[in-house]
């Protein structure tokens, strides 16, 4: 088998293990290419049946409008259930406090909304699109990653994970995060998207938009960025390599209009995908710390 077939077969196997082992799983859907790929794999795993889980979106309220439009079209085509957890609700309930200042982001606040959504719907497994090549703490995480009742990841107490046997047994209140595309690289995802002709939100492809430069990164000029007179708005040809919240996802200058161009661009790139994520730049252990706190 070709490597993409192997990766696909492994991911489908993992998705079916989730269906078989858990009472009430969910698929965490961000609107990014990795979770869109997961949805495509779920179709391969479960059609012509329905998905044995709803899609769950944790909405910071600072999304790219293109992502939300894409999400709603996808859900309509799939005929599957979508549950949305709103960070705004957590703010209104006084559970989290909005950050202040120019670099304010709701990225950290998402964790609380995510954990509340998991608790409210009693999800025992949450499927996510994280990959081990993204970041060094993620490189250490198991495919079935058990979180305690506070949603926390304990890297020192990970269960051994052998062959293709995944131990999803948990106590009430705990949940398992499951990462079916752990072994895929960014390039693998793009090659798979090309091979399978998977549709993506338009912001992944080169387009013209207003941007500002913050901390050396190009950010979409949006009201959420608390712009002031120091921010100089420029109209540039850009695309996004990852799609998160508008406050933490930086754009790259790009002329890549087609998937082939993007694959070419990634192969030439000297910067990693998460190099354009402000949330990872906070400290050396930014991702590890967030995961320990219950993050995706």
């Amino acid at each position, binding site marked *: *088998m*070709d*490597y993409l*077939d*192997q990766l*696909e*077969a*492994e991911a*489908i*196997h993992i998705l*079916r*293990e989730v*269906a*078989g082992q858990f009472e009430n799983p969910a698929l965490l859907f961000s609107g990014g290419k990795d979770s869109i790929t997961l949805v495509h794999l779920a*179709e*391969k*795993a*479960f*059609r*012509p*049946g*329905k998905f*044995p889980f709803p899609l769950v979106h944790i909405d910071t309220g600072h999304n790219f409008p293109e992502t939300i439009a894409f999400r709603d079209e996808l859900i309509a085509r799939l005929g599957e259930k979508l549950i949305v957890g709103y960070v705004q609700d957590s703010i209104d309930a006084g559970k989290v406090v909005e950050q202040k200042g120019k670099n304010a982001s709701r990225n950290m606040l998402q964790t609380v909304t995510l954990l509340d959504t998991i608790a409210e719907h009693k999800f025992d497994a949450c499927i996510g699109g994280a990959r*081990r*090549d993204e970041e*060094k*703490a*993620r*490189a*250490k995480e198991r495919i079935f990653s058990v979180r305690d009742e506070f949603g926390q990841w304990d*890297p*020192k107490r*990970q*269960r*051994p*994970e*052998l*062959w*293709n*046997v995944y*131990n999803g*047994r*948990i*106590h009430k209140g705990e949940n398992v995060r499951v990462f079916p595309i*752990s*072994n895929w*690289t960014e*390039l693998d995802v793009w090659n798979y998207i090309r091979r399978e002709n998977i549709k993506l939100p338009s912001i992944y492809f080169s387009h013209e938009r207003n941007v500002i430069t913050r901390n050396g990164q190009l950010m979409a000029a949006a009201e959420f960025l608390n712009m002031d007179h120091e921010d100089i708005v420029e109209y540039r040809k850009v695309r996004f390599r990852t799609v998160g919240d508008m406050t933490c996802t930086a754009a790259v200058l790009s002329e890549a209009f087609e998937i082939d161009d993007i694959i070419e661009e990634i192969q030439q*790139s*000297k*910067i*990693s995908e998460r*190099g354009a994520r402000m949330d990872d730049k906070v400290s*050396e*252990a930014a991702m*590890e710390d967030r995961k320990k706190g219950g993050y995706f």
Partner: protein
Amino acid sequence: MDLLKFITAGSVDDGKSTLIGRLLYDTDSILDDQLEAIQRANRKNNDGTIDLAILTDGLKAEREQGITIDVAYKYFQTDKRKFIIADTPGHIQYTRNMVTGASNADLAIILIDARKGVIEQTRRHSFIVSLLAIPNVLVCVNKMDMVDYDEAVFAKIKSDYEQLTENLRINQVDFIPVSALKGDNIAAPSANMPWYEGTYLLNFLETVDTHQPNTEQQARFPVQWVIRPQTAALPDYRGYAGRVVGGSFNVGDQVAVLPSGFSSRITQIELAGESLNTAEDGISVVIHLADDLDISRGDMLVKQDEQPAVSQEFEADICWMDTKPLDISQVYLIQHHGKTTKIKLQDIRYKVDVNTLEKTTDGHFGLNDIGKIQFKSADPLAFDEYARNKSNGGAILIDSRNNLTVAALMIAKATA
């Protein structure tokens, strides 16, 4: 393009993480922002070059202590192949993490420090490689720069290692003298060792054939999930979803359903709505049968004339992985594919001293202990000998009190 999965094993200061760092660096797999992060971390070797080990030590605790605690997975590719490296810890305290990384590897790189030669840890790592049935071993004799690239040092280690593996079940062993720190024989042939006629590491990895001859596997299909839409358009659709783990199935094959033993015929094989004639090893598909049988998750389809053992009693090699020692009076759970059932440990056959490879009758199994145990499960299991089919001979033991995975089982044979 194909995919090679390998592990790297070595003891604490053998330069294992440096070797991986070097492979990634020399294949241009480290990007600018990652290099920048390494430079920010400001970890330098004694000679002022960047410490590449920091690339694989992903956890804070690892960076603080300068050791690898858990498996880190790294990905790179060349024009010829894609690679997944499981960088596994060398320290005896983390043997279980090495076993985790080894379970899916096609090749093991064992590092030996040229100054120290074959040591206890080399023996332990090699034993684990043979226990987990990794077909190929590559011994990298590292730090050749510190022994003046001396051929005699390399020859002595090679001969010592060959002696060590005489009693182990390893299919193929190769040797390369390297210096991970200086880059000798990593991504290009070394000019410092003209006496060495073999190939360099990267070329070896790109070309090694890990396919074992004479191990034609029999067809196995553990059922994970039954697809039954029960809609107006598809009232009678019933498909068995799973992944082929050995051999292959064709439309028209007579199959047996285990453990029940009922038989039927494959009428259709589907992948994402497309019909296939054959489901080859490793593929995830949906299989349809001619007869309506009671089949659910945990059952296994096999070819009628290629049946595995179906038994409640068997012997297995085990690696204990929990800090709480094995309690022979306790009933555990075994998870084998989609089947989880209660299991008793009937008899401890022996324990192996992983450093000397001697068998002892010591009945105490603590963290990282390895040995052979006689088991009896509540429900019958359909399995193959681990050495013949890893996926169908491997299983895990779970402690039902805390749900932890407490042991890896490599099934040897049915005993009843």
